[in-house]
């Protein structure tokens, strides 16, 4: 195994790539937001030891999102933040917050608890909702990032415009989430290139693996100029899971990119995730492929399976109808509506 270089190269083909690790946030979707403090501490320690630069923590939909609608977290935000902060020695602690699910007060409390990177999220055409919260993050002295959710729902130009708007609001990194796992590498390449041309801050890509494209899409993003890539240990995340962190680190290493992550230690962290966080391996099952094609939010997988099973309807039909209605994250109430209508047919 080739050891990673400890200094970033300046040549364009071997740029530094920052791996942002939302295992303890996006992974919550795979376990019904039930991660406990001991699990979080164990993984955060392992990720920190591996040199992963940012460890993101929270409810699956971020700060303040614990609810009957989206799912109740096992422990309050404050306990998650305190636990992970104590476990990190080198890594920065990240949080995710979408205006409408959380509020400015949640951001204030998170920064008080030691969050250093704050992602403010909005649906793909709604960057305007991030204005005040990005300003607040800057005012509090944390690093402000903006991400567009469900980014496949709008066009390339619109994504670039929205990202540029977020930079005007103070975002120090901007980018897109493939929340449904819908993209192919060429889609990612086109979008990241357009965003890179529109902004002068690092560009973020966050993939999901519904179509088995998460690592390939992340590589495409790096090649198109992205500087921050999200990846989760063992791919632990919503739906079919996220870009698998340890695999991505290995791929980037082979490509000559510097991540600052010790691969051996990242593999050990992934083992911790598998043994202590996950109740089953992240898998591209039939439902995952179908929901990725339908462009439905990956986090709907568990609630759709539960509702479809209880009502005796085909979960694929539920995903098809949710896709037709362009349901977005946060609209879990539509699952019940769709299941009810399908049952009556």
């Amino acid at each position, binding site marked *: 195994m080739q050891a990673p270089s400890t200094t970033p190269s300046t040549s364009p083909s071997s740029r530094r790539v920052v791996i942002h690790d939302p295992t303890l946030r996006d992974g919550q979707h795979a376990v019904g937001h039930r991660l406990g403090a001991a699990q979080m501490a164990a993984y955060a320690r392992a990720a920190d030891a591996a040199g992963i630069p940012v460890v993101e923590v929270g409810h699956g939909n971020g700060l303040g999102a614990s*609810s009957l609608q989206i799912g109740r977290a096992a422990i*309050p935000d404050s306990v998650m933040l305190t636990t992970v902060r104590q476990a990190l020695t080198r890594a920065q602690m990240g949080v995710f917050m979408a205006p409408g699910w959380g509020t400015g*007060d949640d951001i204030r409390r998170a920064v008080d608890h030691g969050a250093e990177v704050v992602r403010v999220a909005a649906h793909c055409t*709604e960057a305007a909702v991030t204005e005040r919260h990005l300003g607040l993050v800057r005012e509090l002295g944390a690093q402000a990032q903006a991400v567009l959710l*469900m980014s496949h729902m709008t066009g390339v130009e619109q994504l670039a415009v929205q990202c540029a708007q977020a930079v005007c609001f103070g975002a120090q990194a901007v980018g897109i989430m493939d929340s449904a796992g819908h993209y192919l590498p060429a889609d990612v390449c086109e979008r990241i290139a357009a965003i890179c041309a529109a902004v002068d801050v690092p560009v973020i890509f966050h993939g999901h693996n519904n179509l088995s494209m998460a690592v390939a899409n992340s590589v495409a993003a790096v090649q198109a100029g992205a500087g921050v890539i999200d990846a989760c240990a063992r791919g632990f995340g919503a739906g079919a899971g996220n870009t698998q962190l340890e695999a991505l680190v290995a791929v980037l290493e082979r490509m000559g990119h510097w991540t600052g992550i010790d691969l051996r230690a990242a593999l050990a962290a992934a083992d911790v995730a598998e043994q202590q966080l996950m109740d089953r391996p992240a898998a591209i099952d039939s439902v995952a492929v179908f929901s990725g094609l339908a462009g439905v939010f990956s986090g709907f997988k568990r609630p759709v399976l539960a509702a479809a099973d209880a009502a005796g309807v085909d979960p694929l039909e539920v995903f098809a109808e949710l896709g037709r209605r*362009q349901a*977005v994250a946060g609209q879990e109430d539509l699952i019940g*509506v769709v299941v009810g209508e399908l049952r009556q047919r």
Partner: protein
Amino acid sequence: MRAAVIGAGQLGIDLARRICGSPWLDCALVVGGPSSDRGLRLAAALGCAVSAAGLEAVTAADVDVVFDVSNASARHWADLVATGVVLLDLTPGSSGTMVAPTVNAASADSCWHLNLVSCGGQAVLPVLETIARHGGRDAVQYVEVVTTAAAASVGRHTRLNLDEYIATTQDAVRQIVLGGDAAPGAGPGAGHEAGHGAGHGAGHGVVKVLANLTPALPAPAFRAEVAVICPGVEERALRAELAAAAAAVRAFAPGYQIVACRVDGDLVRASVTVTATGARLPAYAGNVELINAAAVLLAERYATLRKP
């Protein structure tokens, strides 16, 4: 009765149209901000006097009632309080007496500064009040509200003020439905950590509001989902009570419907959709129609009550 509208965006112009259509009200003035040329032209085309001179124009116009859809109602009220006008405030986060017409209109008859809460508040307060009356407001352990508005139905102020939208809606549920004091833990997000404990029996009277804006096209109608933890609710009886509550709202907002209601143990869920009716607004903008129609109805109530 003479009315003025402060704000000439989508909400302000729709209000001006509704006021022009009211037998009790006369739209005497529409005031716009620096970037409201288009709105002021539309208002002028309705036959309203228009001004870009701000509050000075309002105080000079000798009006009885002011509708405020600007982002500065707190400052406006400070200047209006001495003039004897009634202020109907549609700005989220304002300080007036919170009112939903079919729930507590009478309690606001003696107030001069009425706060329309939020479009989501107008959608869910009749539902929550019905559930709380059925189950007993002291028995309500937790209230959750999720609203989803089409991106095209909300303007810049709403996007900037999502925190205030959430806080105001939570306060209104606490005060109007649960009969509580909005002050303790009333700030935006204050319910979150406390709300967390609700499932463990510790969150008596906790209220949580979530707000979605959806980019889906074609834009879906405004939707609000409520979930209430309250023992002792009987589904069949509640359905009948909710049907009556919805019918009362339809008297002024015809596109208001309760589309689902179910009781599962202590968990009561109900869903509301609101479409805009008539040709003035796109059908998905039921949120705009609901809050504007509520404001005009309250102004008409004021006009008829004070009629000599």
